[in-house]
């Protein structure tokens, strides 16, 4: 059993976590973008409606 | 029921007549197939024994690449002048329309393959006539499988801007079982071996593939076409 055995085990665990974490990051980024968009839209619509009155 | 097949047949005849007038898909795919055959000769030594062993695989790669050119045009051809909408609105059912188009594509692909075979035989020194009728059976079954998948996905992607890019990406992974079986069978048949019990396994796979996907396509095509 060479010493790479243990190192590669850590690589394996690391890669599993990195892939999942990477996916979570893209999810979080999308969440942020969506929240920003909806905020902007709400504000825009409120602004338009109040200017109409 | 006879009405259904009559409608399909008239769609087939219409598509074939269109193709015979312009010959655009057939010409393009045939010259493309020849170019790939030529390119393969640089990738592999055409005279070596080893190339003989993978000849079935080479042949089917050529068919798959050139075939998608034909399949791509199948529904896209109806886009100008809103012909597709007219077809969908006509009393012809979606399943009949699909079957007609699939049949037309099948005939075109078979013609393409039968034209390529002799060229392949000459350039790669392969005796493809050894088991001709069995080979024809394999060609027909595998081509039908490719046609059903290709025609369905042609309908799925017809309205996309990126149609030409999307179709190959979606179609090739789906075709893998049929292509594998066809490659295995063709390699053995070209080598002059009869259909042994081992090969029957692959033939059964091809038949199963055809039945499953034909049934799925006929059941789902109505949903795809009506928007």
């Amino acid at each position, binding site marked *: 059993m060479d010493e790479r055995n243990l190192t590669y085990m850590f690589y394996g665990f690391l*890669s*599993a976590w990195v892939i999942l974490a990477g996916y979570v990051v893209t999810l979080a980024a999308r969440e942020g973008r969506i929240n920003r968009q909806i905020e902007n839209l709400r504000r825009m619509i409120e602004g338009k*409606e109040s200017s109409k009155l | 029921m006879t009405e259904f097949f009559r409608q399909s047949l008239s769609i087939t005849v219409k598509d074939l007549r269109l193709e015979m007038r312009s010959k655009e898909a057939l010409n393009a795919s045939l010259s493309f197939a020849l170019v790939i055959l030529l390119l393969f000769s640089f990738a592999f030594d055409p005279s070596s024994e080893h190339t003989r062993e993978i000849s079935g695989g080479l042949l089917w790669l050529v068919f798959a690449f050139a075939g998608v050119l034909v399949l791509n045009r199948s529904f896209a051809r109806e886009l100008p002048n809103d012909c597709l909408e007219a077809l969908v609105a006509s009393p012809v059912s979606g399943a009949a329309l699909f079957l007609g188009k699939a049949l037309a594509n099948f005939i075109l692909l078979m013609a393409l393959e039968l034209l390529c075979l002799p060229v392949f035989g000459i350039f790669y020194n392969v005796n493809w006539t050894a088991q001709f009728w069995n080979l024809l059976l394999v060609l027909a079954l595998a081509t039908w499988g490719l046609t059903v998948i290709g025609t369905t996905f042609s309908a799925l*992607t017809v309205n996309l801007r990126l149609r030409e890019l999307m179709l190959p990406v979606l179609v090739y*992974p789906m075709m893998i079982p049929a292509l594998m079986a066809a490659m295995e069978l063709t390699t053995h048949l070209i080598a002059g071996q009869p259909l042994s019990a081992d090969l029957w396994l692959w033939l059964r796979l091809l038949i199963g593939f055809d039945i499953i996907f034909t049934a799925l396509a006929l059941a789902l095509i109505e949903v795809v076409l009506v*928007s």
Partner: protein
Amino acid sequence: MGTKILYVLGALAAVLLVRNLYVILLGLPDEKDQGAIYRIIFFHLPAFFTAALCYLTALISSVVYLVRKSQRADDLALSATEVGLAFAAVNLVTGMIWARIIWGIWWTWDARLTWALITWLIYAGYLMLRRAIDDPSERAKNAAVLCIFAFASVLITWKSIDWWRTQHPGAVLSIRGAEGGLDPAMESMIYFNWLALLLLCIVLVAVRMRQERVQREIDALRRHAHAL
């Protein structure tokens, strides 16, 4: 699903994952043939099970969408496929790292590996098709049809690649061999970690589904804003 439940599930998954990691690294002994590297199986197999379950969920919700035209079913199909692809990637990459040590190569065209790769490509195609269609109902409908085709093709490919590869002797190296004489403690660990990954998967799918719903809300607001 309520945000609170999601937080609870997420926290539960995190606690379970940390606890499992502790037991895997410090509680379980090395395997006698493979040494430390065998521990990759605790992520490799559960990730595969999770991905397979995601694909199945996507199939069922696609069928439900076509029958009921329910928007939620389409959201679920998309979310499950996307999360399933992430777990399938974990499965593939951990497997490759394991293979580098045990087989000495990153990749071998063995039946299971080939199948896993083809499956990944097919479902990646599903996501690409969704991106290419702009009209929402057209997108949902065509994606649902593609999903049904994809699942059928995945099933057939599974069987046929097995035949294909086993016909070429020498290429038949299977992970299952290592599992044959698995210690009960190790086997239960696989299920424990599967539970953890499954919880994580549920949270991710739920979050992704909510994002789709909010996205539709945004589109509706946009139309409203245009109308004003």
